[in-house]
């Protein structure tokens, strides 16, 4: 019993340690969406309440900010491509979250980088479940509160780049990327995708360079170029 309590406590602590700083970052999303992309407060809130996946939200407002409303196909496609990893997280979390339609629908909504990461880091099924739900709920409530604050302040702030918020957004993406580029193959993909996106920017309409850069991943993924051979599932790693 005591060890189970200790494990639960660890899951709660990890959930808060990851959830709270992530949630705080909603302020810059709110500011960028309103000032950068020109959305109103309610459109910005719908993104945080319904879309609720930070990378996709930033991608959408980022493309709209640079390309305007006419770039909407690229904006939606970028958001969808970045959101596609949540489908994979959902497959991983499917046995963790529990049963029942309402519970699984709510779990789907809370399936993001952070809830999946904290859950996956726990040992027992119980701690994994705690990690998923607590992280997801902390980020959801916090992210929406801070989005609202950022959206309101954004109107007062004027040009957000004067406060370095554009650099903060780039740094936040770098923070999400950092743990994923430990291996050579991932590093190669990151560098190649960054080059492709930058080089195509003057040539293609806004939003498309990101999508073309995504093809780099398909090429490396299909051929496993520079990849290490993975042990098959079930084998010792």
């Amino acid at each position: 019993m005591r060890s189970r309590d200790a494990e639960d406590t660890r899951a709660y602590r990890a959930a808060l340690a990851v959830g709270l700083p992530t949630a705080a970052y909603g302020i810059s999303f709110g500011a960028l969406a309103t000032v950068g992309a020109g959305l109103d407060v309610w459109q910005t809130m719908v993104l945080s309440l319904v879309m609720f996946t930070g990378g996709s939200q930033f991608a959408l407002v980022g493309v709209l900010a640079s390309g305007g409303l006419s770039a909407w196909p690229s904006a939606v496609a970028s958001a969808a491509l970045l959101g596609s990893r949540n489908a994979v997280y959902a497959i991983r979390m499917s046995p963790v979250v529990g049963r029942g339609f309402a519970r699984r629908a709510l779990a789907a909504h809370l399936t993001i980088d952070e809830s999946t990461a904290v859950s996956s880091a726990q040992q027992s099924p119980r701690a994994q479940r705690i990690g998923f739900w607590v992280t997801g709920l902390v980020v959801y409530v916090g992210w929406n509160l801070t989005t609202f604050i950022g959206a309101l302040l954004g109107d007062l702030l004027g040009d957000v780049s004067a406060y370095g918020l554009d650099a903060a957004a780039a740094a936040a993406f770098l923070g999400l990327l950092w743990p994923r580029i430990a291996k050579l193959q991932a590093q190669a993909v990151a560098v190649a995708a960054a080059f492709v996106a930058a080089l195509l920017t003057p040539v293609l309409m806004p939003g498309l360079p990101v999508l073309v850069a995504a093809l780099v991943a398909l090429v490396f993924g299909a051929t496993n170029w520079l990849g290490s051979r993975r042990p098959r599932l079930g084998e010792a790693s």
Partner: protein
Amino acid sequence: MTAWHVVLLASIVCFGLKVLGYLVPARLIERPAPARTVDLLTVALLAALISLQTFAHGQQLQLDARLPAVLVAAILFALRVPFIVVIVAAAVVAAGIRALS
């Protein structure tokens, strides 16, 4: 398309992707090639977005205060400084350079 259409369409698509994952049998995605590609797709998209947010100004490439800010962020991430501290540091560097220049 109004801004509302774009917001609602993209939100529904992203929520739909999450739901889809709970409907897919696990064995499909656990094979090595799809799993690897999904991981690398995230890497490529994030790297491309970082590149654009650092260098793009509309459809032009531009070297400005963002690059030193992102480099500082990279160094701090390498030193395992907490996420939120790095974000603030990057904003401060960019804002500081812009205020001085």
